[in-house]
């Protein structure tokens, strides 16, 4: 497995940016032109995509949908503070190594130390973690490195080799190179600035809340029972609420929850009273709720 070069040149998963958009729409992800363009380009250039934006705008879902669309397996690395090599790259299964050595003693075989050493540091005793798993995969995979802004700056360096060379160096084994360049998505909520080195290796995609038209499409797709007029009112009200100064503006999934709630309640037209009663589906902070219901019951002008 050492030194095997990446076959399957990047750049044949999607036919065109428009085709990418259609393909994503088929698996239920309504991307805008910009998103489709960057995903298409990432494939053509063989580069990872760094997706940044507020929570609940569909960053993680994008990776899942691309996997579904291309029929690839999703390998996910969830980042957290304190993530290290043994959780991200690989770990030696040292219990198994120990057993192997003990079995040796029991069987009274006379294997030389060198043989034993090369035996217990072989692939059989390696436990691949997400990054190595994605690199070694025989089948097509999409690698998702979720919430990369949560790891410390030092840990980011772990990712660099994987992201630029699509390889992992295991000192005892040599370098493991990907057989096919996987599609890689990194997501970030921008709680801290990522290092320049990481950003340089990625294509950057900022994902904001969708435009009213696109969100309306999303609502109509995901909540098919809803009436057009109500969907329209819902997304416009949400857009209005997002413009207020809130602690946590509503995400797309909260819009969907709200739309579903209204459908279940049999509402056909939104008025301030109903909006105020159901607003707690959309907003989770008490101060946000108070503020939004106050502003929504105000009159225009």
């Amino acid at each position, binding site marked *: 497995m050492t030194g095997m070069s990446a076959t399957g*040149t*990047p*750049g044949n998963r999607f036919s*065109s*940016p428009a085709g990418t958009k259609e393909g994503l729409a088929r698996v239920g992800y309504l991307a805008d*032109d*910009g*998103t*489709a*363009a*960057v995903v*298409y*380009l*990432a494939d*053509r*250039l*063989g*580069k990872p*995509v*760094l997706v*940044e*934006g507020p929570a609940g705008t569909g960053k993680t879902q994008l990776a899942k949908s691309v996997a579904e669309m291309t029929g690839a397996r999703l390998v996910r690395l969830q980042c957290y503070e304190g993530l290290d090599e043994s959780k991200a790259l690989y770990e030696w299964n040292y219990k198994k190594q120990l057993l192997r050595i003990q079995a040796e003693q029991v069987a009274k075989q006379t294997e030389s130390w060198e043989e034993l050493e090369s035996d217990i540091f072989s692939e059989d005793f390696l436990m691949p973690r997400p990054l190595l798993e994605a690199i070694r995969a025989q089948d097509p995979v999409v690698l998702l490195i979720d919430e990369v802004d949560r790891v410390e700056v030092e840990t980011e360096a772990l990712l660099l080799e994987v992201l630029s060379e699509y390889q992992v160096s295991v000192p005892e084994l040599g370098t493991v190179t990907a057989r096919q360049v996987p599609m890689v998505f990194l997501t970030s909520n*921008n*709680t*801290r*600035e990522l290092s*320049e080195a990481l*950003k*340089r290796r*990625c*294509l*950057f*995609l*900022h994902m904001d809340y969708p435009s009213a038209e696109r969100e309306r499409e999303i609502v109509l797709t995901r909540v098919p029972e809803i009436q057009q007029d109500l969907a329209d*009112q819902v997304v*416009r*009200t949400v*857009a*209005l609420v997002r*413009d207020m*100064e809130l*602690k946590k503006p509503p995400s797309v999934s909260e819009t969907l929850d709200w739309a579903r709630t209204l459908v279940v309640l049999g509402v056909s037209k*939104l*008025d*301030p009273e109903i*909006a105020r009663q159901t607003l707690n589906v959309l907003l989770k902070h008490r*101060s946000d709720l108070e*503020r939004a219901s*106050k502003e*929504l*019951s*105000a*009159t*225009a*002008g």
Partner: protein
Amino acid sequence: MSAPSPETTLGDGLLSALAGFVGELRTAGVPVSTTELLDAVEAVRQLPITERATLKAGLAGCLVKNEGHWRTFEALFDLYFSIGIGMALASQEDLEGFPAHLDDSASSDQLSAAELSEMAYRALMEGNRELMAALAKAAVSRYAGMEPMRPVGASYYVFKTLRQLQADALLSQLLARAGEQPALQGLLDADLYRRRMEQLRRELEADVTRRLVAERGPMAVAKATRRALPEDMDFMHLGREELAALKRAVQPLARKLAVHLARKRRGHKDGRLDFRATMRRSLSSGGAPVDPRFKSPRRSKPELWVLADISGSVAAFARFTLQLVYALSSQFSRTRAWAFIDGIDEVTDLLKGAGDIASAVSSINTQADVIWAEGHSDYGHALADFANRWGAEVTSRTTVLVLGDARSNYHPAEPWALADISARARKLWWLNPEPSAYWDTGDSVLAQYGVHCTGVYECRNLRQLKTFIEQLD
């Protein structure tokens, strides 16, 4: 990286447009490395160049790795690629549409002012994109009065056109119409009209920019309209739009600052030996303490105290200061805030009680007792007063942040007050909105205070604020 696709070969025109574009991006302060430039070249080769939105997003993905730089990118992209590409590729749309509307005065001047305003009303009512674009073209031809070689940016002409179109009157007319609707619907419609007005403004800007570029070339226009990146804009000289941008930028920074302070609370395993637990564990090993236990260190809950100068000399900075303080107090519950001019008053409750920053500022201006004698900065009196009234509450968990220019109008500086606070506090930082070259000139007494601070930082823009926050660890 991958084989060039056979159908597109890069024309010289496109490549030079890209080179000029990246050059201008770099001049504007957006960092573009060579790798990223090469990616962009590859991107232009791979993407269908006739679809502008796709090309724009693709190039942004390669070149812009910071959301705050997006607007700069967008403006420059419009300069270099609206025409640049058209000429390089002789794309139909640009060649047909473009020279035509340079001297199209004949056709669109025929629209009378009344017709134009009728068109504007309909465009805003219906939100029809094509109509809006057509309106923009006609309105610019008629109203902007663009003079060749006059070195002004697009915004001047846009402003002129909007005024002649009587856009404000139109909008209030529409808003009044929305006001007649039942409550929520009216609100939604009003929001819609405002957004459409914004869209019209953008259409106008795009049209004016196109004309400017055709006349002078993208480089000259870029030079005339060059603006600092959001993080480099001086707090002291912010326009209305920039203030709004600042408001958005301050929120995540306040969160970062709060995260930095909160992170300190997570315990490290360097506590002292827990004798009792160790003895208890040692029972299983016959009294030998083989497994020492440690106390986890007591977690202190850090507090952040902010002292903000809100006097006239730093008025613009004070707006930012209050924004930061407001954002901080919403992110970090243990924030207390004081405002001072020559007197000092605690404004924590005013900030917490206010629903948004505007009402917070107005309640501070009306209710806080910050004027002691004459209403000109007197750091000495304000700090001494602070030390006397609240000094005793400063503990080793308190981080104190002073925001001000230390220009004390030649009043006594009373540095002992700050020394007293500093001795009690965990850290005391001073952020100064003045360029460091001006420190300690005239009535600035920063040096007398500086010696008692953990650190004094120049803080004139977001970049410097970011640097300050990042060094806190």
